[in-house]
């Protein structure tokens, strides 16, 4: 249980795939035009991440190490394609709003990175937990960036109008706005993290779990 909480905290904050490891930049920049999209992309990637981690952890003794990357890519892309086909047939409305992003999941380097760095060396349960926490960390980062972009760019949050339309700055919806916003979000999160690390170092006498 303690291990589980540690892994979760790792994925969400300390080793956040987007904000700390700077992985998966492409989907982060592309899909954060609205909170709805960001949430959809994040959760879809989380689902794939959990499943691919489990699968690769199960097969870790069978895959020859020389061709492991090729094998991971084949397994991940096969998995994503199957999910896309199933979704298209049985959850059509969901497919319509997410359809664009599903093929993007294959090339999301977070998934390959976790397969290589974690799932190929660990047992099934920790690998599944790792997939869950990294996926949630990815989702958190996407939602943070999307909140800023949707609010400033369109004046809405999840489609609900917050600011009048006259105040919305189209810049934030465009790709350049994505880079600027992501930079500021990463800076803010790093500032918070270093602030907390300093605080933890200051009152070191007690067992402080920040």
């Amino acid at each position, binding site marked *: 249980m303690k291990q589980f909480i540690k892994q979760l905290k790792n994925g969400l904050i300390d080793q956040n795939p987007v904000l700390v490891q700077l992985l998966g930049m492409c989907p982060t920049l592309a899909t954060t035009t609205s909170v709805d999209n960001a949430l959809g992309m994040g959760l879809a990637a989380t689902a794939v991440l959990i499943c691919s981690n489990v699968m690769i952890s199960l097969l870790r003794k069978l895959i*020859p190490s020389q061709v492991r990357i090729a094998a991971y890519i084949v397994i991940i892309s*096969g998995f994503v394609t199957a999910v896309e086909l199933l979704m298209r047939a049985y959850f059509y409305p969901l497919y319509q709003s997410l359809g664009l992003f599903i093929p993007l999941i294959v090339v999301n380097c977070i998934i390959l990175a976790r397969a290589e760095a974690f799932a190929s060396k660990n047992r099934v349960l920790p690998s599944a937990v790792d997939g869950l926490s990294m996926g949630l960390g990815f989702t958190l980062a996407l939602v943070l960036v999307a909140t800023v972009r949707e609010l400033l760019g*369109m004046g809405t949050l999840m489609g609900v109008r917050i600011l009048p339309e006259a105040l919305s700055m189209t810049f934030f*919806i465009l790709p350049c706005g994505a880079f600027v916003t992501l930079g500021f979000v990463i800076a803010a999160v790093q500032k918070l993290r270093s602030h907390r690390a300093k605080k933890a170092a200051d009152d070191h006498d007690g067992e402080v779990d920040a």
Partner: protein
Amino acid sequence: MADNQKQGGALAIVRITLSLLVICAIVSAVVTAVHGLTYETYQLRLLEQKQAAISALFDGAAVSCEALPTEGDEVKELYRVCVGETVVGYCANVSSAGFGGDIDMMVAVSPDGVLRGVQIVSMSETPGLGSRVSRAEYLAGYAGMTLFGSHAQEDLVLGEDIDAISGATISSRAVLSGVNAALRVLRQYVTVEVE
């Protein structure tokens, strides 16, 4: 694992290649099976989607569609739309290149030469920018135009017949070019029926 490979030599290479081949074969088989199992359901979904778009263009009436042969490749599909026995209009399914991919739309005219309207079936335009062309308020601008008089032959023009959405010029233009492509085909049917 690396040590066994040194001893194995050529055999090791064959073993590695074979295991990759097996993985690829299994994954391909699974994907093919899933595709086979879901394809029909997907086609059904697409059909429902199109039916809903056509029905919306005819005030939500229970319409029946009959596919007509299409000439050329300007339109993907062409339908004669009936309510009961009476022909209420013609409908064309066209797609045109937008900013984020193809915009798939339905364009309908009534037999007396009035543009019933435009419905976007699917598109992948930038949310909040290009996606505004699918708003009902914008598409309503197309409804009610007539295909005789000045529009008997000529295409509709952006800025004269319909306005572009600011910040979404490419998407607006894509919708317009789709509508024009549809009208080039639909016009023939209208005049044929009227005469």
